[in-house]
């Protein structure tokens, strides 16, 4: 029954590990770039706000698949961008291109989550802080950001879970991750349902604990208003 799980022929754990790696690198990258974007979108400088808004609205409305495919077809095959690899290992090149694509796309959602977090802080909080004589940095670090970070946990958790699922798109440019392995396996083995169940289980294992854990965190850190 389970003889399709020939772990020598099919590197099941390796594929899911690649999925995890894609998720982690993309999450770190998009957290950094998304924070920068959010800083631009709430900054007092109109040009930066305009840039942030334009970036978010354009990239968010582009299909992730198109971004990933364009990273491979456009950046590598046309422009010869090799992402600091020597080009001898196509898998690591595709991996890096995919991570780049995920960062470009996911950072828009991180940015929106952070911005909505800042928006949940009542203006009165900052006004009260200013009335006490706190300066800009103090208002930001002592009053606004601590509250904003707490309310940002649930939307960021959603972004992370969506990112985990979105990493399957990397299969379109041949990164050896779970979705690609699943397609290979169901094409070669006549065991559709068990194979699909294994992969579905794998993703549930990846997303469910994240969701439960971050849901628990968000309840713990919630600001009581």
């Amino acid at each position: 029954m389970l003889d399709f799980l020939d772990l020598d022929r099919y590197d099941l754990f390796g594929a899911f590990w690649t999925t995890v790696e894609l998720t982690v690198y993309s999450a770190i990258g998009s957290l950094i770039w998304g924070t920068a974007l959010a800083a631009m979108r709430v900054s007092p400088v109109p040009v930066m706000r305009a840039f942030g808004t334009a970036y978010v609205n354009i990239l968010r409305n582009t299909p992730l698949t198109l971004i990933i495919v364009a990273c491979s077809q456009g950046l590598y095959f046309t422009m010869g961008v090799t992402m600091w690899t020597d080009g001898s290992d196509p898998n690591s090149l595709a991996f890096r291109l995919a991570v780049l694509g995920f960062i470009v796309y996911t950072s828009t959602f991180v940015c929106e989550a952070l911005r909505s977090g800042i928006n949940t802080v009542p203006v009165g909080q900052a006004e009260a802080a200013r009335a006490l004589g706190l300066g800009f940095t103090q208002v930001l670090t002592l009053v606004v950001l601590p509250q904003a970070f707490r309310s940002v946990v649930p939307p960021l958790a959603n972004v992370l879970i969506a990112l985990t699922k979105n990493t399957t798109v990397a299969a379109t440019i041949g990164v050896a991750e779970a979705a690609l392995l699943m397609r290979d396996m169901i094409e070669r083995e006549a065991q559709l349902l068990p194979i699909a169940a294994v992969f579905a289980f794998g993703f549930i294992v990846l997303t469910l604990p994240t969701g439960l854990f971050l849901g628990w965190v968000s309840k713990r850190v919630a600001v009581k208003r």
Partner: protein
Amino acid sequence: MSKTSVLYDAPGPRARQRNVLISVVFVAALAAFAWWVLSALNDKNQLDLAKWDPFVTDSRVWTTYLLPGLQETLTAAALSLVIALPLGALLGIGRMSQHWWIRRPSDVIVEFFRSIPVLLLMIFANQAFAEWANIDRDIRPMYAVITGLVLYNASVLAEIVRAGVLSLPRGQTDAANAIGMRKTQAMVYVLLPQAVTAMLPAIVSQLVVIVKDTALGGAMLGYGELLSNTRLVAGNYSNTIAAYTVAAALFIAVNFLLTGFAGWLEGRIRRGRRGTGAVVPHDAGEESQTAGAGLPAPALGKGATLPGGTDLPSAGTGTGSGTGDGGPAPGSS
């Protein structure tokens, strides 16, 4: 950007000077980056007129590839939404049932399909149709794409429906009970009709997600939608950069129209005198609504139901996105 930002006061003379300085530096940096990109493109001859003018001079690019592709994209998206809506409504109502043998299975189905990538569902459906159904090879990818999208989006829509019904004031149910309606009657005649208006913007926003996800079918299953036809254009005219730019512009235009429509609907409902004025927020435009099992359902901004259309930040943080701008409408806030 609201008039008064929580982060900073109205700028004084020194702050204005500093802002001008930052603006100049930022624009210079942007220009330098754009120059770097453009010169890199120019080095690879990607800015040649020959690469770009097929989109203006050669009508076959549009009639053979792009427009049919766009049509396939929109067909798949529309069909998926139309099929997923009733399924999602059933599941969403099922999750609110008082009978555990309806509620639990609905919970499991919704959580299951929400935690699985839609690409996996498409690949599975494609193979399942190949093995067990007698569907012509040519249209099998379309069936697979629509099946995958329906399974996934039905569970997302179920959450939207549930949030919509839960957004209604409790008094609605109480009043329905008071005049002797049964639970089903209250749901069908009182709750759902009002919930639909609250849900509409979120449903239209979900359509954006569906349109974007159809591209998966093009890349992985060979479904002839906009992205895979763009690949053909790029191959035939050897203008990869130009082709993908135009395709991205088409996708963005379609999605902007949809988000704009959703924003317009939302504004109309919020301003409207009829109904509660509550709107289900589409979770900060996030791909998968609340995606995560275990996270609170897309609860509604309580601020949205306050009279006078004031948007107060909702109490508690379990309510998903900030409710002040409960939607991803472009240029909102």
